[in-house]
């Protein structure tokens, strides 16, 4: 999942012909001022922190400016800030338009129907989650046919737009559909889509590109995401790694087993916080890398819970033993291992030779991990 910052999403929109305010990205207060003085961005203008988390307006990450001096000051204020844990490095500086109604429009996937779905609401400019369901129309679109005229008309009827903005909306819907399709998007959202005079303008963008389609879209590979530093290292190594609050590390294979392990650990008072999914690897070196990564996150104790399928137990055992040999003394952690499934006997033998016991039951293993991490949380 590649979340595009607002300005990157708008660059995509621009390529497909979706109308946008005039504006540009700036990375320093001086650049912002120069952009207003040169007339590149007409005043009054709006400056918005380019961060991936929502709620910028309330959080002070959006400011308005009427003169070049105000522009520079606003830019300085936002560029210095940390917004919900994210350092603000880029601003989108745009003209401030005289807007009328604000609409919502998005395309995403309806998993149950296995169809893309167009969502439209006359209530734009607020979180769509807070809009009443009856105020959102959901129109499934068949991929073999594409967005049909009658589906466009249905969306327009729901919005009740006058002819000018309605005409503009038709074009935007077609273009947004093409963005969704051709960019392999998980989500394309315009909120708000504002009425400006007789037309519509996309005031914000939210575009999420599917990771799995990156082989078709190398252009998105280099875009930063909201990962922690260790998560980024893990991603580069092809390891699924999630870091949250909590002191127990969990190395498992598969999302379901990872979550079940989490459920059991919490049941016994543990606080799991570092998750490492080996997925379907069958390479001992990959397992070793995973353990070394885990060590760098300084867990209080680690639970290795693997059920061998594609990933064989002996592969995991070999990789684990090698990792234990290489972990620096300062990063050592108590370990509880449970390996089952394909090549289980061989895996257990390898562990035993290295002095590691593999427990058989999930319940007893979870209790042991919680104990090793210092007992149940208060």
């Amino acid at each position: 999942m590649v979340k595009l910052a607002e300005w990157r999403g708008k660059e995509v929109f621009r390529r497909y012909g979706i109308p946008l305010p005039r504006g540009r990205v700036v990375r320093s207060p001086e650049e912002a001022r120069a952009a207003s003085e040169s007339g590149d961005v007409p005043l009054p203008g709006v400056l918005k922190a380019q961060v991936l988390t929502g709620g910028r307006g309330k959080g002070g990450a959006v400011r308005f400016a009427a003169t070049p001096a105000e522009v520079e000051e606003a830019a300085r204020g936002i560029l210095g800030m940390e917004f919900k844990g994210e350092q603000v490095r880029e601003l989108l500086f745009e003209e401030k338009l005289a807007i009328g109604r604000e609409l919502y429009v998005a395309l995403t996937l309806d998993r149950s129907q296995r169809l893309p779905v167009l969502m439209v609401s006359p209530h734009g400019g607020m979180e769509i989650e807070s809009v009443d369901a009856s105020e959102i129309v959901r129109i499934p679109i068949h991929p073999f046919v594409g967005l049909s005229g009658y589906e466009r008309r249905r969306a327009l009827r729901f919005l009740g737009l006058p002819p000018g903005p309605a005409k503009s909306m038709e074009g935007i819907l077609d273009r947004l559909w093409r963005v969704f399709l051709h960019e392999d998007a998980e989500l394309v959202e315009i909120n708000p889509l504002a009425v400006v005079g007789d037309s519509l303008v996309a005031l914000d963008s939210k575009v999420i590109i599917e990771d799995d389609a990156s082989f078709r879209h190398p252009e998105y590979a280099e875009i930063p995401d909201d990962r922690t530093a260790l998560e980024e290292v893990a991603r580069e190594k092809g390891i699924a790694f999630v870091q949250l609050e909590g002191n127990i590390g969990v190395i498992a294979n598969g999302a379901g087993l990872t979550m079940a392990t989490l459920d059991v650990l919490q049941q016994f008072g543990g606080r799991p916080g570092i998750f490492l999914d080996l997925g379907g690897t069958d390479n001992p070196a990959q397992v070793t890398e995973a353990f070394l990564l885990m060590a760098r996150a300084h867990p209080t104790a680690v639970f290795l819970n693997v059920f061998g399928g594609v990933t064989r137990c002996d592969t995991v055992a070999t990789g684990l033993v090698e990792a234990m040999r290489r972990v620096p003394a300062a990063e050592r952690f108590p370990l509880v291992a449970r390996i089952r499934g394909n090549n289980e006997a061989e895996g257990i033998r390898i562990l035993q030779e290295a002095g590691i016991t593999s427990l058989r039951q999930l319940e007893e293993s979870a209790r042991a991990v919680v104990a090793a991490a210092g007992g149940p949380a208060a």
Partner: protein
Amino acid sequence: MSVLIDTDTRVLVQGITGHQGTVHTRNMLDFGARVVAGATPGKGGTSVEGVPVFDTVEEAVARTGANATCIFVPAPFARDAFVEAVDAGVRLAVIVTEHIPFHDMLTMYHYGRLKGARIIGPNCPGIAAPGRSKVGIIPNVVFRPGRVGVVSRSGTLTYEIVSGIKDVGLGQSTCLGLGGDPVVGTSFVDALPLFEEDPETSLLVLVGEIGGSAEEEAAEYIRHHFHKPVVAYIAGRSAPPGKRMGHAGAIIARGRGTAESKIAALQAAGARIARFPYEIPELVREALADAGTR
């Protein structure tokens, strides 16, 4: 007949010459599956684990009568492999490949519908019916023939649970691993009628996880149309909201798809709920005893 496959299932392996294809061809053969052909472009005329390899699916089907395929080819080529199989007349495809773009899966799913071809997966463990056949990658060691059906969106968690059923001396009829991707060929709702109709299945274990609404829809179906006992487990009760735990299926968004909503729905539909995987075997025993069909 068990669910979807049986002793007359003739399995084709697409991508048989790759590492996973080769390993799991061996495992399927060991399980007793009739793996009759492999297909890898450019490798026609060779063989893998004694199974003849063909350049095209068309040729493999013509020469061996293959009627189900297990797809291991890399994600960028999976769509093509599936279309080739469907066009050659194959009507059951287990897609093991992970990381297939969901836009590709949309095409595959609806093309399969148009042609009457069923997909299990992608990114799934597949189907195993102990004593009969297997198309997929579920470890052989966890099975013993029996009367417990298992349907699941998870991979290794399924193995854990199936293994747990075996450990207490019970056995399985068919285990169906659907995969947890955003677009799956067969969902719980699609799978339930198969188990309902399967005379070998006395009870169904349903293994779900947070995210999406497949479990809620399953509960709705169970309430109205499913007449066998159900034991359900939902993974991810304690997962933090908004973070993905490994794959795309496991994300909670917009207040839907929480463990609570799924558990409540299944409970209301009459399912016995396991809080942890190791509670499942005991609930299965109870349910079988109640139904008097052990």
